[in-house]
């Protein structure tokens, strides 16, 4: 019960209100910076019609429980071919906002402290803050666009409510975690139907790197069933599997060595090119870290 309460506190999936305002209220005004105007006025999309704006990519946002979004486009008054587009997504919770942000984030991107974190380039800025995920895309390679993207991001950062990095991201240890590798996946981690809420990150180990992950379930039976399903999938694919009930280990062509252990309503795991000893040490480290985090919450 303590574990369930602690996890629930960390997840903190309570909605983050927009203080009763319309999402359009977050859109920067047409003259947010000197010389700029709206290219087209704000348009709002929901899960049923987001595909009209971003085609098949809409499914990714729906996977992260996307609620609604607003898009607006800006152009230079003196040269209307110089444009950029601002997309503001209400993802419902800070964790989902981080999740969709992390699905785009790569360790080799350039980063900036905008909102909770941002990836930046001359033609694109993405950041998340509170329950919002923001994309600002240049419509032109004109050098006047890039400063405007940054100015827009900075203004939005002040306007958007919320600030805290989701606490549940601390469930994976920070030590030896490769920068910007942490991600939140809501569907099909390791191709498993039941692995629906997963935190994963890359870690530096003696032999190179590995991936550590934590899958969250509503209760212990759900975690047990999911581990059992994973075992069945591995058997079907004729992978080398060992299990002693509590620990599942396998050698897979897709994920390298895979080690999973159920811990209360979590499944902890590591995978990559690592030996048994290192894997078990990582699992123990994961488990100890989670216990520390939980006792901190309690």
């Amino acid at each position, binding site marked *: 019960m303590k574990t369930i309460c602690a996890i629930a506190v960390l997840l903190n999936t309570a909605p983050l209100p927009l203080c009763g305002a319309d999402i359009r209220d977050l859109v920067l005004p047409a003259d947010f910076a000197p010389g700029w105007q709206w290219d087209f006025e704000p348009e709002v999309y*929901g899960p049923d019609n987001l595909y009209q704006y*971003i085609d098949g*990519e809409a499914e990714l946002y729906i996977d992260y429980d996307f609620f609604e979004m607003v898009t607006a486009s800006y152009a230079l008054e003196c040269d209307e071919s110089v444009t950029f587009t601002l997309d503001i997504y209400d993802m419902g919770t800070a964790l989902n906002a981080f999740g969709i942000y992390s699905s785009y984030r790569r360790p080799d991107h350039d980063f900036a402290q905008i909102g909770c974190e941002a990836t930046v380039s001359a033609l694109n800025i993405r950041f998340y803050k509170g329950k919002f995920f923001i994309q600002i895309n240049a419509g032109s390679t004109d050098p006047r666009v890039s400063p405007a993207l940054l100015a827009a991001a900075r203004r939005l950062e002040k306007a958007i409510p919320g600030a805290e990095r989701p606490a549940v991201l601390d469930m994976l240890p920070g030590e030896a975690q490769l920068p910007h590798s942490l991600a939140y996946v809501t569907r099909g981690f390791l191709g498993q139907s039941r692995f629906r809420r997963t935190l994963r990150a890359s870690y530096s180990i003696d032999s190179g790197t590995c991936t550590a992950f934590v899958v969250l379930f509503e209760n212990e039976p759900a975690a047990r069933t999911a581990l059992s399903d994973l075992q069945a999938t591995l058997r079907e*694919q004729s992978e080398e599997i060992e299990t002693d009930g509590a620990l599942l280990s396998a050698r897979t062509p897709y*994920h390298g060595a895979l080690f999973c252990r159920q811990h209360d309503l979590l499944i902890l795991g590591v995978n990559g090119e690592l030996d048994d000893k290192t894997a078990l040490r990582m699992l123990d480290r994961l488990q100890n870290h989670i216990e520390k985090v939980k006792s901190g919450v309690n």
Partner: protein
Amino acid sequence: MITGGLAAAAFAADRPKRILGKTGLKVTTLGFGSMRTFDPGVIRRAVEMGINHIDTARSYMDGYNEQVIGAALQGLRNRVLITSKVKIDTPSKMKSDVEASLKALRTDVIDILLLHSIKRPDELRADEPRKVIEGLKRDGLIRFSGFSTHLNAASIVRSATKDSLYDIMVVAYNFRSDEALTHALEQAWRSGHGIVAMKTQAGDYRDDRPAELSHHQAALKWVLSKPFISAAIPSMVTYDQLRENLQVISGTPSEADLEILHRYDEKIRTELCRFCGACISTCPHRLEIPEINRCLMYLEGYHDHDLARRSADELGLKDAFALCESCTSCSARCVFELNLAAQLGRARTFLG
């Protein structure tokens, strides 16, 4: 660099295949829609189980989806046909996007390149994108070309029929599509274009639970029962979804499947709001009925109670429900014959 694949057919011998129009390509009737697929294992498994074509796009996950596919297909490239998509832009941007796609996919040729998400027929006639496509073919960087479309599909398909630049059309098509689109696709097929169906589910796309015979399977079977459809490309994220879809492709819809689809169609026709807003003026309190229906959809369609509750709270629906209950009978009317009284009643019960 790995060369383009066309020995694919030899490895997919036990999966049903159809010819993709005049291209002569033999594609498995089940293709792999990879937009949401992060796990390369599922892609590799699909290829091992005989699927011989994969659909992606440059813009999916900002290019990362192509990288996932490129990594997944190491050693398997000659067993698979790859379709990717590029958005219409300046010629130099389109060319650099295709080069980036080739690099991410770890291949020196894309089998099928589509103009992504066409919304108007005039986009297909624009000179510059056409010249880019022709140039890419001449340079051997792509083998065949086409477009994808969701909106105004019938008119777009009609306008492209007999246009030899567009070998393949990837179109949102399912058991709820109208006769105009069906007819347009049939005509395009008769003219030699290859037709691939996407968005085959027409409703609850988020149900990725394992299932015996589900409406998902029935919907997929329905699409593949059409002779003018060479293949369907449902999204697949998990091994269960892959397995569920593979079960489908060997058969034609049975009476039981059609009954499932009929019941499903009845269910969503009478319960799925189109969010047109025409009903608002028929409600004496001018309630935001589409928004109430949206919350109900999250609950009943997406099975996401948390999202439904959050949405209802954020919209302040408690006050709306109080007004709703103050009427002794419901005068709100839906132009598509949704039973609004029943919808609002359920919304009040489950979200009030």
